[in-house]
């Protein structure tokens, strides 16, 4: 089993190294360098105290949890960056994606990959629908941040209880084996977890590249800076906003499916329980920054799992949030946020 898994790991690793190198070259030497330095230093200290194997194994566990956080957080940060909308319904978009996958995979009996694709499409459409039915009219009327935020909260409840109405509250699962695991260099990772990490990382890198390199990505970033100015320069803001929702909600749907596939079960509260961690990944990385969400998610995941070496695992959530507080005290804009974004 380890023979097949080893080559599969390599592309992911190279991609990460390339990303890190590119980032460093792009002169973000400050925050990224310091963060990496601290993570490596903490890792080394833990290795001296608890041995390489334990630290590496928990690091792998943290990578898995971190990928869940990062995948969910990117859509959240995208919507905030482009539309300045704090979307409390984002967690429930994840849940929606997971239940659509359940419908396709278990009720209709189609393979999980088809279920994931349909879930992404359905959730993306739900995102666009919410834009057309709620956010665009509200923006046209000049609604304030608070009104919009409360509306997202309302939408979150509508989606969650709609799911409860349709599927009930008992736990459901996708037709996926969650118990098989592969072992690489003595480190164990669930087979589904490995697939989720690889697919998740590839998606996140692709999205980041899209934002950076394509015309659409540039337009999205232009909108993020100033919607009025972007429109003056001839950007069709409506088209870009719809594209943003397609990406953000589609990613939420994907995150929901991958998350449930890896953990093995879902309830209507799934996204709601995750939402706080998603927000902290976003804030940790710097609001509105896709790389930041990725880094924030991974940092949160690894910090939580490493902390279990030192203290009782039941406090691991508190450790994640303590790190959030400390980082924000030192860098209120988040790790990769730009200062001017903080009002």
């Amino acid at each position, binding site marked *: 089993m380890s023979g097949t898994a080893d080559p599969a790991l390599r592309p992911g690793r190279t991609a990460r190294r390339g990303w890190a190198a590119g980032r460093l070259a792009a002169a973000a030497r400050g925050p990224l360098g310091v963060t990496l330095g601290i993570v490596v230093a903490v890792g080394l200290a833990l290795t001296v105290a608890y041995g390489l194997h334990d630290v590496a194994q928990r690091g*792998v566990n943290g990578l898995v949890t971190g990928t869940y956080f990062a995948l969910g957080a990117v859509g959240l940060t995208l919507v905030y960056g482009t539309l300045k909308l704090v979307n409390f319904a984002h967690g429930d978009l994840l849940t929606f994606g997971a239940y659509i996958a359940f419908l396709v995979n278990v009720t209709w009996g189609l393979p999980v990959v088809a279920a994931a694709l349909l879930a992404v499409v359905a959730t993306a459409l739900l995102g666009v629908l919410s834009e057309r039915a709620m956010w665009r009219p509200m923006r046209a009327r000049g609604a304030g941040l608070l009104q919009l935020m409360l509306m997202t909260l309302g939408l979150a409840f509508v989606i969650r209880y709609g799911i409860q109405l349709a599927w009930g509250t008992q736990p459901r699962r996708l037709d996926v084996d969650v118990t098989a695991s592969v072992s690489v260099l003595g480190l164990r990772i669930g087979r589904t977890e490995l697939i989720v990490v690889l697919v998740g990382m590839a998606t996140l890198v692709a999205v980041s590249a899209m934002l950076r390199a394509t015309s659409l990505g540039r337009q999205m970033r232009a909108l993020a800076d100033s919607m009025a100015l972007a429109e003056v320069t001839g950007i069709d803001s409506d088209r870009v906003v719809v594209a943003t929702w397609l990406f953000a909600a589609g990613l939420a749907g994907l995150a929901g499916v991958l998350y449930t596939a890896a953990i093995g079960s879902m*309830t209507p509260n799934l996204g709601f329980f995750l939402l706080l961690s998603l927000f902290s990944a976003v804030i940790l990385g710097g609001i509105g920054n896709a790389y930041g969400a990725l880094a924030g998610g991974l940092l949160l995941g690894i910090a939580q799992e490493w902390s279990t070496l030192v203290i009782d695992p039941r406090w691991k959530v508190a450790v994640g949030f303590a790190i959030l507080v400390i980082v924000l005290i030192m860098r209120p804009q988040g790790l990769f946020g730009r200062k001017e974004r903080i009002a």
Partner: protein
Amino acid sequence: MQAGSRTRRWCAVAASVAVLGFAGACGDDDGDGGTAATTSGEQAAQVPEDTSFQLQIGNLVPLTGDLSPFGPPGRKAADLAVEQLNAAAREAGVEARAAVEHADTESNPQAAVQAARQLISGGARCLAGPWASSETIAVAESVAARQETPIVSPSSTDAGISELDDDGFVFRTAPSDTLQARALADVVERELGGTDATLSLAARNDAYGQGFIERFQAAWEEKGGRTTGPVLYDPEQPSYNSEAGEIVAGRPGAWVIIDFFETYGRMGASLVRTGSFDAGRLFTADGLASDRIPDTIPARALVGARGTRPGTPESGEVIRAFARIYADAGGAPRQTFDAQNFDATMLCYLAALAAGSDDGDDIAEQMQAVSSPPGTKFTLLNLAEGIDLIARGEEVDFDGVTGPIDFDANGDPTAATYEIYRYDPQGVLQVEGQFEARAAE
């Protein structure tokens, strides 16, 4: 303004609760309802003042959430109890009747509190339920004592409930975990043929999990056994790989894990993924007992596992009669704690009848008296006779389907039957034996 309207609301609630001698409470602030705290084991029975009331019993059941497998059987048991009570009352020529209303607690303390308030404002004067210990603690503190409505939980086994500051409004027909933890330690010792093995302990981090595992640890160490852990884990986490790694570390001889199904689906998957977990050496308790392993639990995480759960005496006419009534009614199949909820519902009515009142305060005062000696014993089999005795003011001692009950001053049963179960390779629960445990005096 706001304070005024709130006061009015409280007055409305109090007025609807107060049937006897409590009407003046809205005027004075020091609310002398605290007198309910006097437990009344010694109180001599008297002829009830009023036997023509209709008692509204509220049934707090977990129809959804973690404990949803227990919900429908619990609801059915309460319905059956009311049917039996009304038939027996008619036979005895007693006018007092019972009616039951159900509310879903969603296996969640906040929802349980809301459901309890909703039942009480709907007229319920005595509540059967709630089920999870965390729900019972929440309802005890924010509803039962404050609105003077007794609650009788069929399944909250958390040892801490005995010590709740509940003014004597909290009862349970399920035995305390102190009893079950000791019973499980006995079972583990017997099954492993001694206490040489080191046990790795783990539990969900809540009142039930932590309370149980700590009492188990104490019981096992008292026998001279060694343990590692307990690893306590937050029930809302996405995965438990690091926790699972700790639980299997050091090649323990066996595991004792206390959890509910929803969380164990994830914890179990993480345990199996470690590659060093063997469910054949897992011991657990009532939280993971169900007719068969639900499909959200990876089979390898639970097949072969052994555990204890509160049972009902296997032999005896009472349990046979209950099983017959239950089967004849159709619907939900038997489930752990169904009979406990049947008894809880019965006790609500019997205590109200003895009090001659459907006031919560009076019902709570009679609970211990009707459930424990001294008095003429009666059971489900001669329910009409018992009801007649109570109506004539005789002292009685009701023995439930689940056992003698015999509430102590904390509202806990002092004796209980436990079953030893094991999941067979098909994932079906098999009962391998049963025994009775009594609380140490």
